[in-house]
């Protein structure tokens, strides 16, 4: 029921978001229509990539403090969402970079650290796949997840700390600000992507719970054979 409501809300907010992105927001003077990629690129990064990192961190810390396997499941779901959203964000970055910079990708600090974040999410899964013991896997993955999240603050601050080709902040602290209509479009788009994230995350958590039930019953069935 909760999943269905989130799915409906996600679709309902996606429609005004698309209207605002393509028709309502003014065209940026130097980049033209390509700048409209910004309205999905930023929420995918902030809500998707960084949001997943915060959830993964919470899950890992929660497990290490309580030893409750529910937190391990939570962290695994967050990491999977991180892979999907960070990949989508990097794709939008490439589609913006090609017409604006003339190249698909530049190995500057922000871009590289974002790829590192994606690789950390993938490595987290590889580690899970190699460890069959449930408790040991949860413990090692929690430690790896916590250490991996060191990338996130460096990633976020990279445009302030290093010389980078990535555009300077416009809405973050110290940014130049945006046109009010652009700001409204970004807000609506962020709400839509936030709801999409919530829907997919809740759905993934439901599946993780099902996986656990199946595993448990399979063991019970095997013990009776």
């Amino acid at each position, binding site marked *: 029921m909760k999943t269905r409501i989130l799915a409906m809300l996600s679709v309902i907010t996606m429609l005004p978001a698309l209207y605002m992105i393509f028709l309502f927001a003014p065209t940026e003077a130097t*980049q*033209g*229509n*390509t700048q*409209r*990629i910004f309205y*999905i*690129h930023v929420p*995918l990064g902030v809500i998707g990539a960084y949001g997943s990192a915060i959830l993964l961190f919470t899950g890992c810390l929660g497990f290490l403090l309580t030893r409750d396997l529910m937190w391990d499941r939570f962290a695994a779901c967050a990491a999977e969402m991180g892979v*999907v959203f960070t*990949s*989508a964000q990097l*794709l*939008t970055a490439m*589609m*913006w970079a*090609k*017409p604006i910079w003339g190249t698909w990708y530049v190995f500057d600090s922000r871009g590289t650290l974002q790829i590192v974040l994606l690789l950390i999410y993938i490595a987290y899964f590889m580690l899970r796949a190699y460890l069959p013991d449930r408790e040991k896997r949860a413990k090692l993955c929690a430690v790896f997840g916590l250490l991996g999240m060191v990338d996130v603050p460096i990633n976020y601050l990279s445009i302030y700390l290093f010389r980078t080709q990535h555009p300077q902040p416009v809405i973050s602290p110290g940014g130049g600000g945006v046109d009010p209509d652009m700001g409204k479009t970004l807000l609506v788009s962020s709400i839509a992507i936030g709801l*999409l994230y919530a829907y*997919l995350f809740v*759905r*993934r958590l*439901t*599946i993780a719970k*099902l*996986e656990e*039930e*199946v595993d448990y*019953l*399979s063991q*019970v*069935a095997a013990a*009776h054979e």
Partner: protein
Amino acid sequence: MNNSYLFGAFALVTIVFFIHSWILSSRQVRLEKKLEELKSQLKDRPL
């Protein structure tokens, strides 16, 4: 300026989320089926 990159970006993001949703759906259906099988299998056996 060429709009193909703008539409390309939106198309790619849509494809990524459709594939992810499809994977989640098929995984959920498979697990629910398996869970039902296991439950009926265990119901027939004395514990």
